[in-house]
């Protein structure tokens, strides 16, 4: 009780606490979840991030009640939910495919959960109006799903899920089917909504930008378990494994002599045991030098910064054969393609591991 109160998310009054304890799932001979342990605090926004087949969606679907767990326990506010059928869990869900009822208008879609719960008409109408305002679609009540764009449909799906005031909302790749611009704006809207309503949200995505931008904490999943769970900044600056270092953000692997201090000026390490340094592209600097160990092969313009790729010469086993460096676009002219360069480290590597 005191522990829960102490660890409760500061802003939450409405969100529920979710606790996966050793939850595993097998489909026949395939193990999809290998004893998942995860606690989501009330009002927290946690993203499950991982490559396809890592079990993130299965973890979500078990909580929603669409899959059973092979073993383990799963509680919402201390109550075991595994024996409860999906429709009695009171957990909202938003799908990648929007999944609006095509035969119903926007109004009827949003009101669906309230009608099922036999809420009175006055309450339904009031709720509908406020929800359509909330998701920025006032005046769309009489449209049908087929008349809406993807982004609009997903907003309606969000309103529909929120109508029944769930204490937990699950989002299964809700932005993956949308185009980039809509995705970016909806990303912000969902996050603001979550902050405002204080609902606990669990968000599945394979898009690391999305996870880093939206979540309070990101759980990087791999092979049916959590590899690391942390705040986005920690995950980026201090990944605990090479998988996380490579999966979250862009990373360069630079070989150095085992145990040696991090060099300011880096050159490929040729012999003996090596360590690998995992370094973010913005923490490297390229300097023109005749004796440099790399030469520039390409520029990728990205607005404020340009990503420069340089090819390393010499023995590069275990390290990257190319390094990627982000530089301010204004300084690109000093680093033309073909230029021989040396590599300088300007910050702490995210991770150091034995090669």
């Amino acid at each position: 009780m005191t522990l829960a109160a102490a660890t409760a998310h500061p802003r939450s009054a409405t969100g529920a606490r979710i606790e996966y304890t050793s939850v595993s799932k097998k489909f026949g001979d395939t193990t999809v979840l290998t004893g998942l342990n995860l606690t989501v605090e009330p009002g927290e926004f946690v993203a499950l991030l991982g490559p396809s087949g890592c079990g993130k969606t299965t973890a979500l679907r078990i909580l929603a009640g669409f899959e059973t767990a092979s073993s383990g326990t799963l509680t919402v506010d201390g109550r075991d939910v595994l024996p409860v059928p999906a429709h009695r869990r009171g957990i909202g869900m938003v799908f990648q495919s929007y999944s609006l009822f095509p035969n119903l208008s926007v109004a009827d879609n949003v009101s669906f959960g309230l009608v099922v719960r036999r809420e009175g008409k006055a309450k339904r109408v009031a709720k509908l109006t406020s929800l359509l305002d909330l998701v920025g679609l006032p005046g769309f009540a009489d449209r049908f799903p087929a008349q809406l764009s993807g982004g609009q449909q997903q907003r309606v799906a969000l309103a529909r899920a929120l109508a029944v005031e769930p204490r937990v909302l699950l989002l299964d790749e809700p932005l993956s089917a949308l185009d980039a611009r809509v995705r970016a704006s909806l990303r912000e809207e969902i996050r603001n909504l979550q902050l405002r309503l204080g609902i606990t949200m669990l968000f599945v995505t394979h898009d690391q930008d999305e996870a880093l931008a939206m979540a309070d904490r990101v759980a990087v999943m791999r092979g049916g378990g959590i590899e690391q769970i942390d705040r986005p900044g920690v995950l980026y600056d201090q990944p605990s494994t090479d998988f996380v270092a490579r999966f979250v953000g862009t990373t360069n692997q630079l070989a150095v002599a085992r145990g040696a201090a991090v060099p300011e000026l880096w050159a490929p390490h040729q012999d003996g045991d090596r360590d690998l340094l995992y370094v973010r592209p913005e923490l490297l600097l390229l300097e023109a030098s005749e004796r440099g160990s790399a030469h520039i092969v390409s520029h990728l313009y990205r607005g404020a910064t340009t990503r420069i790729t340089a090819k390393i010469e010499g023995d590069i086993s275990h390290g990257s054969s190319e390094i990627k460096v982000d530089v301010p676009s204004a300084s690109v002219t000093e680093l033309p393609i073909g230029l021989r360069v040396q590599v300088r480290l300007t910050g702490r590597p995210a991770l150091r591991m034995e090669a």
Partner: protein
Amino acid sequence: MVQMRQSTRATRGIRVVAPGLSWALIILVALYIAVPMLCALAFSIYVPTTGFTFVPYLESVRDPGFFGALSLTLLITVLTVVGLLAIMVPTMVYLHLKAPRWRPVIEIVCTIPLVVPSIALAAGLVTVLRSMASFGRGSVPAQISQLLQNPDLPIVLVGSYIVLTLPFVFRSLDAGLRTIDLRTLVESAHSLGASGATVLRRVILPNVKGPVIFCAFFCIALCLGEFTMAVTLGYRTLPVWLTQIAGSNFRASISMSLLINALTWALLIAMTVLAGRAAPARVLALKGHKS
């Protein structure tokens, strides 16, 4: 001859369908259907010796067996449609959601009535019912046999008709369920608090209205016209009654078969209109999609 040449040209190049050709084909088909019916109509209302008459219609309706046969047929029809949909819609949904691996098996099972002649089905049923009855008066099998063959409520005939419609109903519902994103629709309805029955009624049925209406219509048409099973199992449904009075009053039987035919057509048209209305969202989607 000209028609033939036009049609070969039309099949070779799809773009050059002669505007008159489609109409010609429609008229041909219409004639094919209408001419026998018109002949029957002429035969039923025109007696060479006495001229125009409606007596055959009155006679057929006044026949002491008519209302019995009509009410029995309607009862069977209603029960068959209700039973068919009550069994097949949940089954097909279950098959799609929970047991997709069993779909090919069920498909083959549902196709069997198409390849087995109904006389064979009927003969088999009669044999089974008889052997159940042979257990002796009061025994459980004999009681079941009697219950199935209740003269006022022929469950055996209802069941048989459900089986006979399976090949078409399976395909229709299967296709209908494939066109919607069934799994996520069901899951989102569950997550909004809807139980299984509510999901079926409020989400699935409205989205497969067209196929469901087709199934109901097909079933009605079958029940109104099926003869073999009914006569073999010894029930006096409308078609059975018709052949019986055909011996004594041929003109009356023709008039009645015309009426049944007209009823079937009326149903077909009604169902087509209903099925067209069943999908307002999709119609709107075609007309009013904004980009």
